């Protein structure tokens, strides 16, 4: 029933039921009617044979004595059977000896050529049966009887049969329609209900609804299986939700713990740096006091020792300042706005140049480096990078420092390049650690906090920083400022 593909289950069920019943009834009807027809015909032939035999026996003497009158009287007895339309008695020479016609005015042609060649037999036509029998006397054929009977009775019987059958078919199909209409409701209604529940589950994501249907048939087990599936989904969904909630809770807890730990660490490093300053101030202050008040009473080496003590306290003060700066970078909020790095670099360059006016350093600053970020923090980045470049080109002539930017696969990279002391790439990973230095203090003074600060600032902007260099070939420090870092220009 492919043509019914999109029809409703209801229609399919009703059609299936009616068609199967109709076909069965039709086949049964045709078979029964055919058998009926054959039986009727056989019965007629048998009856006519008996009539012919009786007529033949009664006409022997008439044939022997050539008495057609008595033969016709005998034949006239056939009137009793209304089916017999005509009868004829033939002599041994195939001459018509006597006749009977049901309708005397009717045509005698009914009997013409009706005698068969053989001794006995019959011929079934559309509307008549022609039957003939030889008449024997002393083993010798002395004549023959022919009976022509009407088949209309058979036809009428058949017509009646077909009509009855058609009525039965109609009535039983109507009953079938009524029954299957009722039956299909018990099949398609639960299916429709099930579909409704499935739709609700899909739309409302409510896995607690259940399909109803208490029957014990296949649809009932489908409903049960569907409900079991829903229960399974509901449980899994609940488990999933619980797992997600647990996870979120754990993330929140961990985040809170981390925040606390971070705060503690910041507070710790802040107060350590802070509290370290007080004794340092004392050492430095009293060393100077000693130097001022008692310099004359000290030997040369004593004064030298004091000088070294003061120098160390100054150095330690710088280290503490660096640490404080670093922790400040971590603590301060990053405020994003448009920052012109080119003009910032120009300002810092002017400051550097002012600090050592007699140093000939060539500086190239690319214009239009507009970035998105915190102005104060980005200034600190450029200060550290340009300051480093300034410091490490001290021994170079001519010294050259460049600030610029490049666009690479949609990401803007800023850089500060110099032709100074450079560094060995195998130490590149140490470059950005706090208090990591690649040069001796007497070579290039410093506390090793600048690039660590740069890295923190850059990472707080969501960017990356890296460096490329070689000993005595200069260094290039590159950084990005993450998404939103590049801003046209």
């Amino acid at each position: 029933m492919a043509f019914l593909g999109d029809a409703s289950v209801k229609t399919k069920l009703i059609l299936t039921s009616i068609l199967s019943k109709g076909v069965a009834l039709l086949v049964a009807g045709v078979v029964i009617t055919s058998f009926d027809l054959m039986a009727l015909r056989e019965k007629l032939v048998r009856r006519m044979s008996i009539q012919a035999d009786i007529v033949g026996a009664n006409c022997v003497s008439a044939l022997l004595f050539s008495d057609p009158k008595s033969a016709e009287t005998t034949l006239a007895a056939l009137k009793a059977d209304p089916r017999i339309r005509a009868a004829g008695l033939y002599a041994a020479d195939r001459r018509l000896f006597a006749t009977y016609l049901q309708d005397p005015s009717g045509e005698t042609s009914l009997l013409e050529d009706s005698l068969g060649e053989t001794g006995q037999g019959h011929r079934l036509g559309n509307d008549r049966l022609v039957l003939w029998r030889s008449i024997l006397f002393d083993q010798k054929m002395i004549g023959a009887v022919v009976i022509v009977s009407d088949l209309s009775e058979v036809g009428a019987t058949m017509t009646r049969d077909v009509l009855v059958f058609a009525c039965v078919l109609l009535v039983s199909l109507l009953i079938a329609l009524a029954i299957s209409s009722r039956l299909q409701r018990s099949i398609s209604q639960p299916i429709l209900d099930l579909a409704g529940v499935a739709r609700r589950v899909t739309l409302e994501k409510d896995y607690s609804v259940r399909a109803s249907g208490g029957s014990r048939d296949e649809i009932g087990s489908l409903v049960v299986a569907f409900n079991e599936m829903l229960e399974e989904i509901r449980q899994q969904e609940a488990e999933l939700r619980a797992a997600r909630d647990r996870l979120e809770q754990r993330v929140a807890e961990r985040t809170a713990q981390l925040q606390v730990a971070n705060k503690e660490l910041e507070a710790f490093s802040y107060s350590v740096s802070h509290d370290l300053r007080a004794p340092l101030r004392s050492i430095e202050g009293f060393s100077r006091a000693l130097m001022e008040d008692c310099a004359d009473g000290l030997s040369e080496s004593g004064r030298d020792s004091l000088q070294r003590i003061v120098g160390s306290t100054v150095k330690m003060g710088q280290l503490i300042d660096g640490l404080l700066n670093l922790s400040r970078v971590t603590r301060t909020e990053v405020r994003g706005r448009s920052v012109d790095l080119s003009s910032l670099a120009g300002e810092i360059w002017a400051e550097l140049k002012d600090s050592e006016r007699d140093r000939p350093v060539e500086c190239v600053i690319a214009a239009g480096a507009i970035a998105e970020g915190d102005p104060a923090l980005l200034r600190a980045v450029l200060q550290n990078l340009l300051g480093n470049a300034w410091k490490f080109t001290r021994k170079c002539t001519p010294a050259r420092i460049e600030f610029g930017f490049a666009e690479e696969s949609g990401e803007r990279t800023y850089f500060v390049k110099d032709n100074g002391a450079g560094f060995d790439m195998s130490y590149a990973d140490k470059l950005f650690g706090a208090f990591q230095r690649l040069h001796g203090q007497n070579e290039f003074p410093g506390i090793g906090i600048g690039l660590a600060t740069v890295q923190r600032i850059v990472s707080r902007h969501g960017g990356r920083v890296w460096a490329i260099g070689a000993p005595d070939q200069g260094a290039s420090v590159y950084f990005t400022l993450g998404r939103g870092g590049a801003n046209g220009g």
Partner: protein
Amino acid sequence: MVDKRIVLLVEDNPDDEALTLRALKKNNILNEVIVARDGAEALEYLLGTNGKSGKIRLEQLAVVLLDLKLPKVNGLEVLRRVRADPRTKLLPIVVLTSSKDEKDLVSANDSGANSYVQESVEFADFVRAAGYLDLYWLVSNAPPPVTR
């Protein structure tokens, strides 16, 4: 000229106290210096307790040198309370800060400090600062302006 007015130093660290006193002396500030060792003591000197007036007669006070990190009542709180009191509202106060963070704190909070001096590890800086104090607050005859 010689100013007979008093300087109140609020400082809990004896080393810092000694160094501050030395710096003042080095810069020829020969005024009497009273030292308060914590915030509560400073408030007692300035505002008094239980309705009594402070131990110092305020008109004799030239300047208050106030450290921020103090036991009991911290420096910012001292500053706030002194500024809230009408008697000491216009008192010149110089805050001694030990770091840039504290400096930011003092300037950002509109705390009412007239000035601040960073107590540098390098003592020379502080001596310079003390000298500046001398010029600004003690030598000047005019009542100091209150920057708020």
